[in-house]
Structures are given as C-alpha cells and as structure tokens.
C-alpha cells in the first residue's frame, strides 16, 4: 500500500527532475542530464507499476481511491484540497503517459543530441510530465485545471523551443492563445459546477447526481450548460473544430515534442476530461450530441486536409486532429470505454508515427517535405517497418491496434446516428489513403533527393529501440479489447466498466454487453464497412503513388477548385485572420492603443503632470527673490487682515 498512500511520489519525481535539470543543468554534462531526465521518468513508471500491483489488490468498494494531502484553498464554502485519486481510468492514463513519455525521453537523447539547450529541453519535458500526471491524478476540478494549464504552458515552451526561429515563436503563441479561448469556457464551467454542486471534488459532485430528479435543483439545462462549457475547454485543448488551428502549427516544435505532447498525451486531455466527467455528460443528451457531432465533423474535416499536405509532420498533425475527433465521437455516442481505448491505441501508434517521422527527418538531414523523399525503405529499414506497422494500425487494417478501437467507435456511432457513422466511415477511408500516401511517397519509388548532398542513414539505437517498443504495442495493444469482436469478453471495457457504470443515470447500466453470436460478430467485423473502406484507401493510394504516379497530378488539375481549397486548408487561417485577428488588431491599435492608452491613460497621467507644472510656473513668479516685493505682499496681507478685522468688529457691534 506504499504507493497508494504516497501517490504524490509519482508526480513529484518528474518535478524533481525538471527542477534539477532546469536549475543546475547548464553545467551538467549530457550523461548527467540524461540520467536525471530519463531516471525521474523511469522511477515514475516503476511507481506506476507498483501502483498497478497495489491497485489490483484493492477491494472494489474502495475504488475510486482518494487521498487528501492538505487543504489548498478555503474561502467560505469554496474549499479545494490537494487530493489525488486513482481509479481504472486513471490507471489507463497513467500507464499511457508514463510509458510513452519514458520512450520519448529515451528517443530525445538521440534526436536532440546536437541541439543547443539540451538540458532545457529535458527540463521542460519533465515539467510537462509532472503537469500531465497532476491532470490525470487530480481528484477535483481545480487541481485538474492546474495540470491542464501547466501542460499548456509546457506545450508553449516546447513548441517555441527553437526560440530564435520566428515561425516557432508564432506557433507557440498561437497554440497558447487558441487553447486559452477554450480554457475560458472551461473556467466558467468550473465556476458553474461549483455554483451548482457547492463542491469541486469529483466524488462529491457525482454522488449528488445519483437519484437526483431531472427537474430538481440540478436541472438538465444547467447540466447541459456545464457540459458544453467544459467541452469548450476540451475543444481548445484537443484541437477540435473550430479551435484546431493551433495543432498543425505546433509542428514547429521538435519532433519528440510533437509525438509526446501533440499526439500521445496532452491533446488527449480533453478526451480524458470528458470521460472523467461522464456522469455529467450522461445526463445531458444535448451536450452529448454536440460532442459526437463536433467529433465526427472534425474527424472528417481534418482527414480531408490531410489528403493533400506534403509536409510529413503536417499530415500527421491533421491526422491527430482527425483521430481526436474519433475519440470524441466515441464519447459522444456513449461509448466512453471505446473512446478511451482509442485514446490509448492512438497514443501508441501516433506516438510511433511521429517518432518514425522524426527518424525520417533525422535521416534526411532536416527535410520534412515528402516530395523530396522516396525510396527510403532500404536505407532506413527499422524506421520503415515501424512506421509501416503504425500505418496499418491507424488505417484500421484488421489485427492492428487501430482496427479494434476505431471499429468499436464506428459500431457505437452506427447504433446511435447514421449520419455521424457515415462521416466517421468516410473519414476512415481518407485516413487510410493519406497514411499510405505518406508511406508510398516516403519509402517507395525512386529517390527524389540528391544522393550526393543528403547522406541517408539509419538512426542510432536510442532512437530505434523506442520505435520497436511502440511498434509492438501498436500491434498487440488492440487485442486488449479484441475478444469483444470475436464474441468473448472485452477485457479493456470490463476493466473500465466501474468508472462509467458507478454514477450512470438510472436505466442505463453502463455499456451494453455484446449480444450477437460469436460467429456473426467475427464475420461482421472482418467484412464490415470499416475494413472495406480502409482497404479501398490503401488500394487508391497504391494506384496513385506506385502504379501510375501521374494520376494525382491529373486529378488535381481536373479538380482545380476543390484541390486548391483543401491545399490551403479551406482558408481557415486566412478566415480567422480576416474575421478575428485583423479586427482585434485594428481595435487594439486604433482604439485601445491610440485612444484608451495614449488618450485616456497617458492623457490623465500627463495631464496631472502638466497642470502641476503650469501651476508651478505661474506661482514661481511670486517667489521673485526681490525682498521688496515680499514686503509688498506682507503689507497687502496685513491690510487685508486689518480690513477683515475691522469689518468683523463692525458687524459684531
């Protein structure tokens, strides 16, 4: 019971690592920075393993396990404890975060080896893990918000890691400011949550929902408002429509950062938050539908942009936005476990894709443009095979992780709303197409780079070993939930079941059990639409980029209008620029700056100064230094006083 009683150790370790590297790292040699950075995460991972062992021995009625360490804020009714909690959902998230971040740390020792500010990078990365674990372990909304903002800060710091590059600085700012719009909604949601439930603890809030009448104090409309506000936060953090614009730009950061923060962990915080708040969302059908709709639209929309991108990391970025959309689609149609399952498998295969892409970029000497690559398959075989597996996983080819998770989500969506299902299905086809397009453009065909200039080489072991680990998980990770599809028990869903059933609304006993006979399920799963459409995507990509490479060009020319539209990402950045940024800039410049700041604020300050100065310069004339003029004033004064006295005396008399 050691770790269960001392949960703080798990989050303290990365913080310690960040502090040591951040404050003292400048004078450390690389091995010391490495051992502090990786060691702290490795210890956190070991603590997590011990936690799992202790957690499995915990009686079911003690879950969720909440541990309060001290009271953080008290103000009247408002009371926030520093309290951490563990339940099945936390275990899943902790596992993903600690494991993926451990691999990314190891990978970074190779990828960042020649960079300036090596210690700074590791310090930020550790700090990120600290905040992410705080977010995941928090037992109340406010502490969760601390982690939420903290990961946003680390994202900003790491996207702008190369702070001498203008585009990196702008991307960092964009990421920070865009998510702040979402956080505005999230903050109001937290306040409304406290106002309604008089508490910010998850347990206290959820207990009040049990048995509450829909028309009682906690009305459905209030719940819907809370859920929608919280979802606004998730939309910002998890890069959904319409706030997704920051994520593709965030690719300016180093690739390990993209893998860890912008694919595997931070961007899934919104998904985690919605899953954590499932008792609220389950009671707000409208909010649920909004979540599902936004998710499905994003999944489809981002996939279309991914079709035509040429920057290898941009393709993956839009793919991430799209996959996050699937997670929200899963949550929105009530299949929380499937959404979280996709979160987990996505962390593996998308982390792997980004790390492989990093390895490719490393091999190409920094070039990220796919049209400059080609034929890398034989040059960097380990990277190729890992990325190939990840592509199979994300495309939903049967047997790989993404197949199980995406199929579950689409199944749930079909049961809920055919329109959402159709969007998700077409998006899945696009996903398959753009991912195989990436593979074919990068690894197949003739080399399109100058072989005399670019010395293509396989990455060192500290980069390839994490790839192999993730490739294994991308392959077998899906089988945790697999038996569901072949008619058995879905272990993953069964494990998570208590989290989503404990406070489920009356009449809904958690996710429904599979009812179909094993044989039909297997048949259904293998011949179902998702597989057909994934294979279609694969075949079309093969046709376009291997069989007849002229086809894409011809197609682009015959569909010039739509092609240009998608290539420029639907001009959303330009639209936001014209509709929001330019007016804001205009108001800031012409009203806030030239009128309010210069006119009112500076005017007041300068006005006070000018009045004082003018009065002073007038009054200065009196103090002439001429003794006789002083005497004159004395006389005038004396006469005045005398007259006054006489006048008063006269009046009294």
């Amino acid at each position, binding site marked *: 019971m050691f770790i269960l009683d001392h949960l703080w150790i798990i989050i303290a370790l990365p913080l310690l690592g960040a502090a040591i590297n951040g404050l003292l790292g400048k004078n450390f040699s690389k091995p010391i920075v490495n051992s502090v950075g990786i060691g702290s995460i490795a210890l956190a991972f070991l603590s997590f393993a011990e936690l799992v062992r202790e957690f499995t021995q915990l009686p079911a009625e003690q879950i969720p396990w909440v541990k309060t360490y001290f009271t953080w804020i008290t103000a009247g009714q408002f009371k926030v404890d520093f309290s951490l909690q563990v339940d099945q959902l936390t275990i899943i998230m902790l596992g993903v975060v600690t494991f993926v971040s451990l691999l990314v740390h190891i990978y970074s020792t190779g990828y960042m080896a020649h960079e300036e500010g090596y210690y700074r990078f590791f310090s930020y990365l550790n700090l990120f893990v600290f905040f992410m674990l705080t977010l995941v372990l928090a037992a109340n909304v406010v502490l969760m918000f601390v982690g939420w903002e903290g990961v946003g800060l680390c994202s900003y710091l790491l996207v702008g890691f190369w702070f001498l590059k203008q585009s990196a600085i702008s991307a960092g700012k964009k990421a920070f400011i865009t998510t702040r719009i979402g956080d505005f909604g999230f903050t109001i949601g937290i306040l409304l949550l406290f106002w309604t439930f008089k508490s910010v603890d998850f347990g206290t809030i959820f207990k009040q929902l049990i048995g509450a009448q829909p028309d009682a104090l906690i009305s459905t409309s209030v719940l819907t408002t809370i859920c929608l506000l919280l979802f606004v936060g998730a939309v910002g953090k998890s890069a959904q429509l319409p706030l997704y614009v920051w994520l593709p730009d965030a690719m300016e950061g180093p690739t390990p950062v993209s893998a860890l923060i912008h694919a595997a962990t931070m961007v899934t915080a919104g998904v985690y938050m919605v899953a954590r708040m499932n008792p609220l969302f389950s009671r707000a059908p409208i909010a649920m539908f909004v979540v599902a709709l936004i998710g499905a639209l994003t999944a489809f929309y981002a996939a279309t942009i991914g079709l035509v991108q040429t920057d290898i990391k941009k393709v993956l970025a839009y793919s991430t936005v799209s996959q996050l959309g699937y997670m929200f689609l899963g949550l929105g149609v009530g299949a929380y476990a499937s959404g979280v399952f996709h979160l987990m498998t996505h962390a593996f295969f998308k982390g792997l894709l980004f790390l492989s892409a990093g390895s490719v970029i490393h091999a190409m000497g920094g070039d990220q443009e796919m049209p400059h690559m080609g034929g890398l398959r034989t040059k960097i075989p380990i990277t190729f095979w890992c990325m190939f597996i990840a592509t199979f996983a994300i495309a939903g080819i049967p047997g790989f992780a993404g197949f199980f998770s995406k199929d579950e989500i689409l199944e749930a969506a079909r049961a809920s709303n055919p329109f959402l299902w159709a969007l998700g299905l077409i998006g899945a086809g696009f996903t398959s197409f753009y991912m195989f397009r990436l593979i074919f453009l990068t690894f197949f065909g003739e080399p399109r780079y100058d072989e005399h200039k670019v010395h293509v080489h396989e990455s060192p072991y500290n980069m390839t070993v994490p790839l192999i680990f993730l490739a294994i998980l991308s392959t077998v990770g899906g089988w945790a939930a697999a038996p569901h599809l072949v008619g058995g028990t879905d272990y993953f869903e069964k494990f998570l079941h208590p989290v989503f059933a404990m406070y489920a609304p009356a009449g809904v006993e958690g996710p429904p059990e599979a009812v179909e006979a094993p044989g039909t399920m297997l048949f259904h799963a293998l011949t179902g639409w998702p597989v057909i459409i994934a294979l279609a995507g694969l075949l079309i990509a093969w046709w376009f980029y291997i069989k007849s490479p002229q086809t894409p060009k011809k197609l682009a020319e015959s569909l010039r209008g739509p092609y240009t539209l998608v290539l420029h990402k639907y001009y959303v950045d330009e639209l936001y620029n014209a509709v929001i940024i330019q007016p804001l800039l205009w108001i800031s410049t012409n009203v806030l700056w030239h009128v309010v700041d210069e006119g009112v604020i500076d005017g007041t300050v300068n006005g006070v100064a000018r009045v004082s100065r003018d009065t002073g310069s007038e009054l200065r004339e009196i103090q002439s230094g001429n003794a*006789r003029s002083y*005497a004159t004033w004395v006389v005038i004064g004396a006469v005045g006083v005398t007259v006054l006295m006489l006048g008063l005396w006269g009046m009294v008399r």
Partner: protein
Amino acid sequence: MSIVPISYYLVLSAILFGLGIVAFVFKRNIITIFMAIELMLNAVNLAFVAFARAHNQLDGLVFVFFVIVVAAAESAVGLAIIITLYQNRQTLNIERINLLKF
C-alpha cells in the same frame, strides 16, 4: 494743561508707519530701506507709548525698551552687512543684489 487726545498720537504713528512702508517698497538704496525700517519701528514705538500713557500701564513702555534694544542690535548687524555687501559688490542698489534669485 490740556491733554492731547490719544487719536492724534495714533494718526501720527500710522502716518509714520505708512511712510516707512512706502519708502521700504519704493526705494532702491539699501541704506534708505534700512532707515525706512527704523522709521516703522519708531512709529510702532510711538503707538506703544501712547497707549501706555492712555491706559496708565507700564507694559507698553517695557515693550518700547525692548524694541529700542533690538533695533540697536539690528542696526549694528545690518550696517555691518551693508558695508560688507558694498565692499563685495560696489553697489547699494537692491535690485542688483540678486544672486540668490531664481
């Protein structure tokens, strides 16, 4: 022997004081200004004496002696300053002694 009314003394005192003020304000020569001050002091002395006599009290007389003593001391110091000033600036015109003026 008829008693001169006190108002005569006071009017004379006021006239002398007024002359002193006018001289103080309009004259430029320091010596003249100094004399104007003496004139004002003595105008006040006259008023004191007149009141003392009218009220048959000695307080006014005591004040007068004080004023005379202080005025004597002041004359001594003042004249010394004026002499030094003249040695340094070769002028007695008060408008040219303006070193400390802003």
